[in-house]
């Protein structure tokens, strides 16, 4: 084959062709279709009409949309927060343990192997009002008097789905945080010790600033994923009760599969994407700020 005779840049173009095809075909076209459809009335029962921004305006004014937006924000903020609260101490502990740390790391990774839909089933089972082990634990230690129907009430249901989601995200966040922590030279801590700093000061002035990159990246990815993955909610509560855990993703699904209004579904998807980008932009701003 006469590959040698092609110039370097042509070679690059040729070889990266699959990637380009993906960009255009797989992402570009669906994106254009998505935005296009969002301007239409497309409900299979009536002829397709151009509506301009009507779908967006309708959703903006729609109570259900606003409620689900609120739920989505609550959900992703809760999940990210919970993930961080669990991951940081874990990473910190792992960085201080010498013996057996590899084994421990392996164990910490396990929840990541769990598909989110399965996590929903697992936690749904543990939170079950009649048979759930968590109810048994809570009642036995006297936290509650009798079984709580976690999934039957909106606020506890939201907590339950947050837990089911965050649980799978802790390993990833831990790894990244750990990488950030381990990259910090020990001598910095030693000199801080000499100066009499306690752990809070060390964390605030040494650890967090220096590990900012990986931690913020981890948080970004965790939030973006929590924002956009609804599998755990699907299997745990399916958006209930009384739409207590109804997030934008579920609204999207309902418009596609229950109400069959594709134009509105597309508009919901676009709103979702825009908010995602906004969140990412915020993080990136903090990442780049020195």
């Amino acid at each position, binding site marked *: 084959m006469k590959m040698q005779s092609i110039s370097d840049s042509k070679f690059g173009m040729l070889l990266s062709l699959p990637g380009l095809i993906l960009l255009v075909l797989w992402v570009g076209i669906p994106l254009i279709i998505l935005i296009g459809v969002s301007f239409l009335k497309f409900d299979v029962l009536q002829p397709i009409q151009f509506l301009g921004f009507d779908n967006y305006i309708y959703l903006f004014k729609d109570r259900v949309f606003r409620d689900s937006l609120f739920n989505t924000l609550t959900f992703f903020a809760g999940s990210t927060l919970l993930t961080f609260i669990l991951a940081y101490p874990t990473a910190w502990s792992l960085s201080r343990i010498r013996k057996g740390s590899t084994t421990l790391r392996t164990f910490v990774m396990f929840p990541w192997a769990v598909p989110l839909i399965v996590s929903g089933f697992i936690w749904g089972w543990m939170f079950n009002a009649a048979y759930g082990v968590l109810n048994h634990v809570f009642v036995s230690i006297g936290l509650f008097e009798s079984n709580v129907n976690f999934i039957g009430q909106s606020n506890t249901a939201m907590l339950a789905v947050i837990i089911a989601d965050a649980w799978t995200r802790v390993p990833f966040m831990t790894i990244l945080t750990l990488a950030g922590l381990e990259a910090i030279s020990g001598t910095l801590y030693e000199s801080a010790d000499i100066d009499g700093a306690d752990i809070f000061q060390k964390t605030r002035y040494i650890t967090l600033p220096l590990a900012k990159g990986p931690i913020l990246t981890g948080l970004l990815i965790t939030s973006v994923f929590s924002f956009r993955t609804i599998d755990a909610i699907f299997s745990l509560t399916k958006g209930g009760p009384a*739409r207590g855990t109804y997030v934008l993703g579920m609204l999207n699904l309902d418009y596609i599969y229950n109400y069959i209004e594709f134009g509105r579904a597309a508009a919901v998807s676009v709103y979702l994407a825009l908010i995602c980008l906004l969140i990412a932009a915020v993080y990136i701003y903090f990442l780049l700020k020195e």
Partner: protein
Amino acid sequence: MTKRLSIVFLALVVMLAFTMGLAAEGQKEAQDEQNAIDLINWDAPKPAVERLTGDKYVLPEGWDAATEGVDEIFYFNSGGMGGDPATARNIELFEEMTGITVKWAEVSSEILFQKTLNVLVSKDKSVHGMSLDSGPYQLEQIIGAGWAEPMPFWTDEVKAAYPDSIVPTLTGDDGKGYATVDTMRAYVFYYRPSWLEAAGVEKVPETWMEVREAAKKCNDWAKENLGQDYYGIVFPAKSYNLLHMLQPGIYSQGARVIQDGAPNYNTPEGRNSWEYWTGLVRDGIAPEAVLGWTWNDYQNVFSRGKSAMMLGFTTWVNVCADPEKAPAMQEDVFGEPAEGPIGKGDWAVIQPPKWDASEPDSNRSAFIDFDAFMVNPFADPAQKAAMLLFSEFRMSKQAMANELILEGNEAFYPGTYKDPKVQEQIMWAEPRSKSVATTVMESFPPGAMKANDVLIEYFGRAAIGEIDPLEALEKAQSEIDGIYQ
């Protein structure tokens, strides 16, 4: 070097071919275009109505030519086959008659409508028939969208032989029939005699007002004597099953929901019913857990002995009478073995209540719930023909007798009840047939699913005291009006 490159390219090509091959798996080859269905003569060898309502179902002429080449048909069954012994038996019979294997997927009612719509919107050929588990709310939309295959066996005579409360729902504007009834469930009122007696309820409740009083007494008594997880009355408030409680409240006052072609729950009767059911939860007579219960959950609570009363399916008589499925029923509330009114345990069944004493007995009405069954218009003609035969068989007297006896579903063909052999095998025949006689059927215009979701959501919030009930109903109805504009 070139060799390595070629190997890589070859590998890629092989992989691509593999993927394509796998891609082809899901598609069936298109069959010959001649419309196989036309080969069937539905009124031969006897008129359709006779083929269906005789003691044994008779296949129509031309069925074998129409289904030539079809070995197997596939449909979505609502829920698991374990709970459908009649369906299983009917499938066996069909397979014996035609030699066509019937395959099914057990799809839980949570996702059944979604999967059905998926098949229809994507014009998928591989699913030939689908169950619609909330017929009244879904049929108009499906038929209106042209998504159901017309069923030629719905001749005028056949239509006359089947309940005129239901047949219009199965018929399109063009007068053609587009669905049959898969399974049908009327509602009856269940109670535990020993419980009512222990709680000091003197008379078996016949109105909803009396039910509430009795439920309160039973609830109070149970909380003191049995435990926290015993309830006066239970009902489902998750998903459209809630409507099957709200609507009887309205029908029992002699009113209807659909007015001028759209549902209106904010009428005087609607408000009564709404306040009643939210009130049961707000006053603690029914637990908040009802918000997470579907038709299966709340009836299981009753048959496990944790509730004094319920408005439940007629099918549940079979569950209550089964010592394995409902051991608690075989005992009374004090744990002593009990024979009960018909010797099947401490439970009894009466017609659904009327609203209050001022109503006539003809208003002892509940809603009739049925699964509709339809054929996928996008499937291949021969398979559609086969599935049409299957649908027709399922609504015959022979198949319906199995539904009645083996599963306790009500028979879609009313004549089934008159058969003495059938009569001696079903429990509580009198209240059940009375209930079927006074039951109400309303069919809901497209958009009902969305409207139901709104109603269910506001019910939940009103029931836990988040909003005032009447305010919730106002808001819900105004959003529903918005959907139907």
